[in-house]
């Protein structure tokens, strides 16, 4: 996959650097050494990475997938083969279906909102404002707090009899109702508010860093041309920041898939099963219900969905480049 044509510009740049060095080596050495021993130190230095990738991420994933076809309960039981039973049960479980739907809503909203909020805030901060350092720190600090804490505090702020709703009513707006955590229809958005609060600061910093990387000349040129600022952002700056957006997306997406602590701390999945998420299903089936097989089947489905999203995207990404 790092062969030839499907490389984005910088990889190509790195590649050229390497081939230049390879060429240099070629000149000094008469014989080409065995491929395995080329770059020997680098390979040795990469052993921890290779071992982690193979043993932990591939090995444990295969182990998990295998055990999802077994009737493992409290302990892994490789001999209790049950075929697709765990998957049949999984897909006939209401709670799992709700979890998937919630993740889709939460994921889509969280991705869009994080990017939009992150970018907008970064753009605002980039306008040579005063107190930039202070404001940036304020927006970023929630990232230092764990999801448990985030969930707890927001559960409280959104609590109708203690928090926001109560305060607004005290101000005299008696009919004000804002009770997302007890309304099954919108509870997932209550969680979203907290999730965005915790994570958007980091995305903002990534975006800000990207904006700082844009050449001053671009702004000068757009001013000379008389293009309005908002147009410059949308049609010139954002397309230039594509790699930044991609990095941000990976950061957001890996967080979304794993969302668990936040839900546990904020709603415990309630009311009813209205705010269940897949990671919570997996963990509870594995550890509370002592049904490892069911938990593994659910986590395998999560992995598959990650692959389903990533593979076509990667294909488009590189397929497009190849045509150029």
């Amino acid at each position, binding site marked *: 996959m790092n062969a030839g044509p499907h490389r984005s*510009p910088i990889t190509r740049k790195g590649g050229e650097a390497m081939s230049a060095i390879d060429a240099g080596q070629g000149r000094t050495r008469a014989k080409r050494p065995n491929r395995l021993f080329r770059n020997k130190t680098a390979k040795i230095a990469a052993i921890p990475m290779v071992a982690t990738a193979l043993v932990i991420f591939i090995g444990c994933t295969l182990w998990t997938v295998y055990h999802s076809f077994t009737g493992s309960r409290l302990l892994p039981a490789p001999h209790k083969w049950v075929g697709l039973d765990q998957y049949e049960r999984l897909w006939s479980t209401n709670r799992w279906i709700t979890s998937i739907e919630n993740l889709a809503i939460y994921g889509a909203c969280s991705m869009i909102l994080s990017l939009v909020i992150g970018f907008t805030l970064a753009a605002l901060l980039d*306008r040579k404002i005063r107190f930039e350092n202070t404001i940036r720190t304020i927006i970023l600090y929630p990232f230092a707090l764990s999801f448990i804490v985030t969930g707890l505090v927001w559960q409280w702020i959104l609590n109708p009899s203690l928090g926001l709703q109560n305060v607004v009513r005290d101000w005299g707006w008696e009919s004000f109702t804002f009770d997302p955590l007890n309304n099954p229809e919108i509870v997932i958005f209550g969680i979203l508010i907290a999730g965005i609060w915790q994570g958007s600061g980091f995305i903002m910093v990534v975006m800000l860093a990207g904006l700082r990387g844009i050449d001053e000349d671009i702004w000068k040129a757009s001013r000379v041309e008389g293009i309005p600022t908002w147009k410059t952002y949308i049609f010139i700056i954002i397309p230039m920041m594509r790699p930044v957006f991609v990095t941000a997306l*990976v950061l957001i997406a890996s967080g979304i898939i794993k969302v668990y602590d936040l839900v546990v701390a904020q709603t415990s999945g309630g009311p009813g099963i209205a705010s269940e998420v897949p990671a919570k299903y997996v963990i509870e089936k594995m550890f509370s219900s002592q049904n490892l097989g069911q938990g593994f089947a659910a986590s395998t489905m999560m992995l598959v969905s990650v692959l389903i999203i990533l593979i076509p995207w990667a294909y488009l990404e590189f397929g497009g480049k190849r045509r150029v």
Partner: protein
Amino acid sequence: MSDTALASGVALKPAQDALSGPRGPKPKRRITPANIILYSTLFVVCIYYLLPLYVMIVTSLKGMPEIRLGNIFSPPVEVTYEPWIKAWAEACTGVNCDGLSRGFWNSVWILVPSVFLSIAIASVNGYALANWRFKGSEVFFTILIFGAFIPYQVMIYPIVIILRESGEGITSFVRFFYEDAPTIRLMGSLSGLVIVHTIFGMPILTLLFRNYFTSVPEELFKAARVDGAGFWGIYFRIMLPMSLPIFVVAMILQVTGIWNDFLFGVIYTKPDTYPMTVQLNNIVNSVQGIKEYNVNMAATLLTGLVPLFIYFASGKLFVRGIAAGAVKG
């Protein structure tokens, strides 16, 4: 596949002058309608982000009766430091009633080696991936990135089994040479915990370091090669001195992650060496009994102090490092 795209892309500008300052159009006058909108938007945003912190601080200074009666935004009528004292020194974890103080140094002892090793390994990975590609290196990197999407909890049992087996393996290997060597345990020891943190920190850190090192001007690298410097020579003499910002970022991410970690901390330690988050969990997560919100909040703030301090202290460096690590590449 995915990685090359996400990690690479356009090199916007060389790292050095990336952060010379804001680049947006210069506002001309102080008070313009646009500026009023700008600052009032930022003001509202700041309120949204500060509100929870305010609630935590205010609540931690109230007594329980006041919390039950009043609303959570009102400032304390009677300021009490009791919850802070309780959280730090008196809150009970089972039979031990010495609060969070018990876990603070344990957390530090876990934090230091874990942060050090995970950053050391990830930076070497990133360096190898950026400057010393070998056949298949990108494949391993891709796998690593996929690893970032797996919930930790799914990996607990297989990793426990791997650590147990490799601990036994190492023991019998050592005993092959020295018959009365002590049993080496990876499971239930600090070394096991450090390994686990290194593994789970690896995907994102490697991504950051790889992108950063790719942006280092290749002339430097070539020149060093011509001078005969090898893999380690270039790493220590050229790459390390240039990489302060990205090391700061890595450090911040790892300090936050490891300090806030509960699950691994409790599996791989003994009661005497439980990290601070175990006490926090016990204070915040008790299934039964009355919830002492003020103590919860004080405990939360106390536990968060270390990462918060690092965020506030590192300020600009963090953005600089992110700029170099996450954006370039």
